[in-house]
């Protein structure tokens, strides 16, 4: 029983960061039909900022917000520099544009900073644990889940109650109609990028606290998981992205925990991907369907 609970907490902790990233990808997809493969580069931006600041002995209470801010700025910058110019192009073009940005980001860090990994110190309490009813929890897991829950609650509030959130949701269903209702394309899209940057920044802070290091290709692993989570959930569906992220985290941890040892255990990730492939065969549109406004 106790290992089961630990596995669940572990899985939710891992899934939380996927969920935050996937939600950002889904929000951006909603407003402009871009699958943003450069999204996880925001983590890299945060990581290098944290690395530079931590060499100056800056406290994590300052670092974490700084990471979030840097991600927001970087996210909005990508929109201004690149995505604005391909808005309305085919999804294929937009996707490759994001790829180009991802490559460029890798290359720039490599050329101008260093191709090797730079480690720095995380907060002291990260690996501390506490015990409840005979079950041992890591503080970091609990903090990750709590922060994620808080951010998701905030997200729900923004999308339900604020004019900006409603405009984004409306734009996700039918951008033309939203524009006719007075939503301003530039502002809604830039806002969506800022919000996605905020979510990625929170994810980055959580990830970096646990593994404080910066390297050019840091984003790649998270990117794949986040994109997959967003698509599992059904691109453009915000609930779906969160569910997809959590499900992916749980599936990873569960499979690792329950597959027999030996070759099978080593093939955990292969199984996760095989499961994902199977899911798309059964439900090509993902778990949650978004109504499309295309007319015939």
């Amino acid at each position, binding site marked *: 029983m106790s290992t089961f609970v630990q596995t669940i907490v572990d899985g939710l902790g891992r899934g939380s960061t996927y969920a935050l990233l996937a939600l950002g990808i889904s929000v951006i997809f909603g407003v402009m039909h871009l*699958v943003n493969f450069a999204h996880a580069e925001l983590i890299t931006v945060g990581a290098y900022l944290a690395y530079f600041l931590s060499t100056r002995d800056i406290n994590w209470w300052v670092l974490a917000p700084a990471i979030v801010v840097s991600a927001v700025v970087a996210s909005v910058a990508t929109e201004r520099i*690149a995505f604005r*110019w*391909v808005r309305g*192009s*085919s*999804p*294929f*073009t937009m*996707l*490759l*544009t994001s*790829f*180009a*940005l*991802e*490559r*460029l*980001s*890798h*290359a*720039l860090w*490599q*050329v101008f900073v260093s*191709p090797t990994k730079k480690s720095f110190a995380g907060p002291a309490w990260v690996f501390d644990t506490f015990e409840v009813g005979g079950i041992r929890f890591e503080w970091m897991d609990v903090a990750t889940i709590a922060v994620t829950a808080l951010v998701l609650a905030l997200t729900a509030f923004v999308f339900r109650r604020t004019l900006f959130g409603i405009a984004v949701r409306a734009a996700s269903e039918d951008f033309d109609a939203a524009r006719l209702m007075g939503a301003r394309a530039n502002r809604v899209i830039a806002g969506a990028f800022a919000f996605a940057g905020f979510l990625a920044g929170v994810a980055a802070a959580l990830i970096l606290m646990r593994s404080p290091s910066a390297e050019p290709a840091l984003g*790649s692993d998270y990117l*794949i998981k986040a*994109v*997959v989570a967003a*698509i599992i959930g059904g*691109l453009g569906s915000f609930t779906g992205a969160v569910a997809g992220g959590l499900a992916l985290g749980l599936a990873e941890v569960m499979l690792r925990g329950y597959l027999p040892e030996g*070759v099978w255990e*080593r*093939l955990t*990730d*292969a199984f996760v*991907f*095989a499961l*994902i*492939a199977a899911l*798309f*065969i059964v439900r*090509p*549109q*993902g778990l949650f369907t978004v109504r499309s406004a295309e*007319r*015939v």
Partner: protein
Amino acid sequence: MPSSGLSAERAERLGRSAIASGAMFAVTVVAATVYTSSGGAARDLLVQELLVNIVIVMGLQVFIGSTGILSFGHLAFAQIAAYGVALTAIPAATKVGTLPDIPFGLGDVELGPVGATVVAVVAATILGAVIGVAIARAGGLAATMITLAVLFAVDQVVKNWQEMTRGAGGLSSVPRLTTNTWLWLAALVALLVAHVFRETRAGRFAVAARDDEIAAPAIGINVFWPRWTAWVVSVALVALAGALRVQMIGSTNPKQYTLDVGILLLAMLVVGGMRTVSGAFVGTAVITIGNEAARQIGDTHEIERLPELFLGVALLIVMLLRPGGLLGDADIAAWLQRRWHRSRRREAASPGALAGDEPASDEAPARSAASSGTGSGWGADSGSGSGALVVRDVVVRFGGFRALDGAALRVRPGEIVGLIGPNGAGKTTLFNVVNGLVAEESGTVMLGDRDLSHDPPHRIARAGLARTFQNLRLFGTQSVRENVALAALAARRYRPERVTVEVDDLLAQAGLLAVAERRAATLDYGNQRRLELARAAALSPEFLLLDEPTSGMSNAESLAMVDHVRTTARHVGAGVLVIDHDLAFVTRISDHIVALAEGRVIAEGTPDEIADDHAVAEAYLGRRDASTPP
């Protein structure tokens, strides 16, 4: 005449594939010879890399270029083939030492280069064909995600199944090929396959489905098969590249098949222009050479990772400035085709008329149809008699809204029925139900005694219902002629019992012969409407379903359209069901009119009866308020 024209066309298609492939191959040979004539073995390596890249990118072009579905998964099959070659070709004596626990008795297998290549490519292709079923079914973004999952799954298996693969370290001591002959041959084969595939039925249908996924089934294309065929052909090419590459360098490891490498190859496809073979070829050359140049400049100036910077910048610039690639839709093969059609038309025009009835239409596009009459061939009565189109009690609900609420109508063979009604009456929804895009909750659609209620769109089109779309769905990147030819091709294949219609005749009738080699998307609005009608007619349908054929046309054009629709329908022996808002048009053209409001038939009869009908007037103009005196 038609059959000889057909085989001449086939010969021409093969001819231009051969010419285009030969031209690209010759350019490569000359460039490689010049480049390697000075400088040492390093230069030879670049040539090898270029040749392998050509094979892979041609493979990618066949699938990604023709279907428009992005794939990250192709490298997985290059990897499978490479490991297949390694496992079967490494000498048994070596395997005892390096792979002691190898399963399936592979330890004793020792094939020659040809045997190992064939086994590996066939194995990878069969696996690809199975996975391809899922990919071709899913389509779109889901297919892309499946390919991504396949890439990672294969990568993980290779990295972790150490008994077979030795994990991240990879396999070495694969017997090496000593000359580049096989690579050159593979490159030539790849160029030929890519060019020829584009001319096959599967290739042309795949491109049609890429351009419009809804219009393709509407002319009888089952998008699954062309997609799957393209996938299998492309996987085979990529597997061939993988199998040869491992024998050039003598070893293989997972690092050669990562997503990063995949993106480099995708960049080659996209930078030149993925939609055409010429574009893919140019892109491969530009990126391979640029990458090497960046590496050398980086080495001399001690800038690390310059090639990656080059790749990112090149891809970004192309996407922002020329999203269609450097070449866009420019293509040697397509250019040869246009030349051929032009010269053939000039030949046909000089000694006299081609089909006897239509040379004038070239000069007078819009009105010409009126004069063409029933000149030749199969007239009104030749309809093969599959019976009437009968729609009964159809109910469709969108959420709580009843879009159709027991709608019914009947169109007899050769008859022209107008379908009118205010906005939101359910006219287009009724069309969508009839051709299978929208599933009805209840009710039936019958063509003669055949029940079409549950058939998918491509089956319904093959049964003989062809439609046009309210907001125009042409195969935009294809020529005007190809738009019609695709439907004629589908008709020959799927409706062999009907007499096929000559593409040139239909183009002439629509007044489109002069613009036949232009891209469909570049036509003006009226011509696009006429082209859509011609495309639908080319299917030799039993019934033409026309959704607002005069929308956006001037009054004069609408009037001309009355005769044009009539002649075209009579020409192919089809009945017509037509939706239009222009009452003058509908009244003139229809034998019978059905008026729809709120998903129900509120009146039907001859045009005169409908004009006097109170219910129709009310539906259009609103009820006369009781308080207002008449």
